């Protein structure tokens, strides 16, 4: 049972000239045994996906392996011809991807897509194939298999699509399954179910699994063995217990320490703290269609009552579609609420016009999720940071001087003000975005998933920075996130949202340790690596 299925032996892959380093993967060796789940962990740019693509023979043309062997059951895949490799994929090798919507053909029914594999690789009759596909759909616990069989991918949810991908990957009982961040695009509760499913099916068939992830929570949940990559080098490899429990390499320790603990750190502020912002029965209904087409209404937020107290960090957590981003954009007056009202320091701010909007914008600022898209690529960093102050009538040299001070606050050199955004990494760009928001000296900062797009170690640095800035500037922060660990680390109080409504709110300690509502309990239960204590190793 423990024979090695996949042996990666001294694999080296060269990057095209002009890349930031010479080798994508350098001299990496590890094995995946039958019945084992090996997690390949690393931050972005560590080369983990390159290894998966090498094994599948799907490397882009400008990358090529220059040394080493990739043995699948003793057969070197690097020396195998294209035709043989095509046969191996599906029969012996299978892969599931991060985004199931793009991996499935949108104009083909799900059943037919799975059926295609059987038709290619087996000699079953069409009736037998249909039975087998239906059986497999049931096996991955999709409800009503005949309906799913004839459904198109867009008619299914993200979790259901990923189940289709899993059914597709495992229907030929491959020896090796490669899963490239298969749950990253899914909500936590769905992620927990998918991880459980992969684990079960893998045990049942004794499949070897190479599981690629950046999330140590997921690693703690699913891994038998862990290999840690950094910038193309394998820094540590061993059993999950060894690597997570007693990491040998400093980089592994840093990564583990950067994973926020699922234990609340900050107490709630005293009950008599003044309220900066308050909402009453705030609602938002999006209407699409109309005119000639069918009118459709989507309730994104309904009767939201929250209070933001001066100097606190209020966390708003929820899964995708819970309305948390809609709420954030209403609070920032970027979209107009359809009902209810928002109060800032005691006065109603709904439907502001002209000078009143400007006054509001001085007090409330936003940091967005995607650091790559939230800076105008055609304007320098300095122009971005001084834009707000200049809009509010600050003199140019004064605004520039403040920008330089802010650069120091977010720990970047003032020289970067002359540069363009594309020259910076994600974490640096997020620092720039924070500086831009702080340039108008706001009282309330709304951070909409501000660390979700960043690697853990960078995420830890940004969280630390936000904390420090809050202390120094006495800032109030509304922190929107889907990540309970992050919320636990930075927030004083938490608001849990589901389907546009507030399900539960209270001090962080109370919500995490004695959740009252079933949904909150399920959410906390589903947090990956729940039983494992990170950050203390």
């Amino acid at each position, binding site marked *: 049972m423990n024979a090695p299925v996949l042996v990666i032996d001294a694999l080296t892959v060269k990057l095209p000239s002009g890349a930031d380093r010479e080798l994508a993967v350098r001299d990496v060796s590890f094995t995946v045994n039958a019945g084992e789940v090996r997690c390949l962990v690393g931050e972005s740019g560590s080369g983990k996906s390159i290894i998966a693509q090498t094994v599948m023979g799907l490397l882009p043309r400008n990358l090529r392996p220059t040394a080493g062997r990739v043995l699948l059951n003793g057969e070197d895949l690097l020396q195998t011809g294209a035709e043989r490799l095509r046969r191996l994929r599906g029969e012996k090798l299978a892969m599931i991807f991060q985004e199931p919507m793009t991996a499935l053909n949108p104009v083909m029914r799900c059943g037919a897509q799975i059926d295609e594999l059987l038709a290619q690789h087996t000699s079953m009759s069409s009736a037998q194939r249909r039975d087998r596909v239906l059986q497999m759909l049931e096996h991955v616990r999709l409800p009503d298999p005949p309906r799913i069989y004839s459904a198109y991918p867009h008619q299914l949810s993200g979790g259901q699509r990923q189940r289709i991908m899993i059914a597709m990957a495992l229907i030929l009982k491959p020896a090796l399954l490669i899963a490239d961040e298969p749950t990253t695009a899914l909500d936590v509760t769905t992620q927990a179910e998918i991880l459980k499913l992969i684990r079960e099916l893998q045990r049942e068939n004794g499949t070897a699994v190479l599981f690629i992830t950046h999330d140590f929570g997921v690693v703690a949940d699913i891994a038998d063995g862990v290999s840690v990559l950094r910038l193309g080098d394998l820094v540590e490899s061993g059993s999950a217990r060894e690597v997570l429990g007693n990491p040998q390499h400093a980089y592994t320790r840093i990564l583990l320490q950067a994973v926020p603990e699922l234990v609340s750190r900050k107490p709630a502020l005293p009950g008599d703290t003044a309220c900066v912002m308050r909402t009453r029965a705030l609602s938002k209904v999006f209407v699409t269609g109309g005119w000639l087409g069918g009118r459709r209404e989507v309730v994104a937020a309904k009767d939201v009552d929250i209070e933001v107290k001066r100097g606190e960090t209020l966390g708003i957590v929820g899964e995708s579609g819970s309305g948390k981003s809609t709420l954030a*954009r209403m609070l920032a007056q970027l979209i107009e609420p359809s009902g209810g009202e928002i109060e800032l320091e005691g006065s109603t701010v709904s439907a502001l016009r002209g000078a009143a909007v400007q006054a509001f914008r001085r007090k409330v600022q936003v940091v967005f999720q995607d650091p790559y*898209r939230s800076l105008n690529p055609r304007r320098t960093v300095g122009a971005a940071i001084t834009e707000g102050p200049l809009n509010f009538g600050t003199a140019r040299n004064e605004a520039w001087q403040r920008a330089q001070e802010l650069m120091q606050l977010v720990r970047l050199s003032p020289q970067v003000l002359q540069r363009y955004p594309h020259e910076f990494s994600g974490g640096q760009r997020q620092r720039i975005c924070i500086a831009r928001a702080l340039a108008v000296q706001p009282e309330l900062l709304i951070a909409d998933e501000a660390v979700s797009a960043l690697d853990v170690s960078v995420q830890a640095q940004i969280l630390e920075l936000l904390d420090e800035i809050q202390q120094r500037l006495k800032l109030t922060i509304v922190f929107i996130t889907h990540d309970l660990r992050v919320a636990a680390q930075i927030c004083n109080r938490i608001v849990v949202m589901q389907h546009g409504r507030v399900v539960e709110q209270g001090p962080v300690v109370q919500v995490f340790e004695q959740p009252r509502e079933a949904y909150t309990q399920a959410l906390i239960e589903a947090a990956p690596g729940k039983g494992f204590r990170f950050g203390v190793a």
Partner: protein
Amino acid sequence: MDPALTELDAERAIPAPAVGPTAWRRLGKNWSVRIGGTVLALLLLASLAAPLLGTIDPSLIDPVNRDLLPGATGEVMLLTGETFPYKFWLGTDSYGRDIYSRVLYGGRVSLVVGVTVALLSLFFGVLIGLAAGTIRWLDGVVMRVMDGLMAIPGILLAIALVALWRASIWTVIVAITIPEIPRVVRLVRSLVLSIREEPYVEAARALGTPTLALMLRHILPNTLAPLIVQGTYICASAILVEAILSFLGVGLPTDVPTWGNIMAEGRLQFQEFPHNVLFPGIFLALTVLAVNMLGDGLRDTLDPRFAKRGDRP
């Protein structure tokens, strides 16, 4: 200090200035841009410097030199009565006018029409497109009007305008520009609609940037690359349409040498003297090809979907 720790601290370090090729350098390396640009520059130069390139008056009628074949020599008599020997490199037409001179001077009209139409339609297209993309209630009305304009064939419009105003270069330019504007409007509107949703525009709104500044500072500069590309295609098609209009006799007056006019006049005796149609035709094809090559090259270098840029690591 541990090497891994310094590696992480590198995240905080300032990056070196970008070393990647700038947009201009990338343009210079693209073969479509090189070839298209060179050919176009030569054509432009030739038509501007036509008087210096051994040409004679392109509308000088000389019955003695009628229907000469390319390469023939003859005696040219100017209106002043002066005569001198002249070699007709590309032959003459049925009025004895020098095709070589006519083609070079005709190039001026084509290029002026092409460039002017491109600039005018981009200008009005951007103006209307920005308004339609930004002002919600205007969008529906403007776009229906544009749909209406697109339904009018350019040639029909040209005939109507010529009947209304008289044939002139401005009539032709207006007639070609009007049907081009809706295409630019559609492009700009769709670009504005997608750029408007970008987080950096939302961030600028949150910073209190007024709507006009938002459009000029954040939205317009990010539509430029596709617009430049669209502009070259408009230029090529305008040159072609001008020739078609002249050929059909609804363009410039017949006494002005344009490639279309030369071809239209040569058409009657095409079987005997094909050079009357052939040479302006070759120049026309070459110009349109060069402009289109330039456009393709610009698209490849300026459009991030075709060129890999250093925007994301």
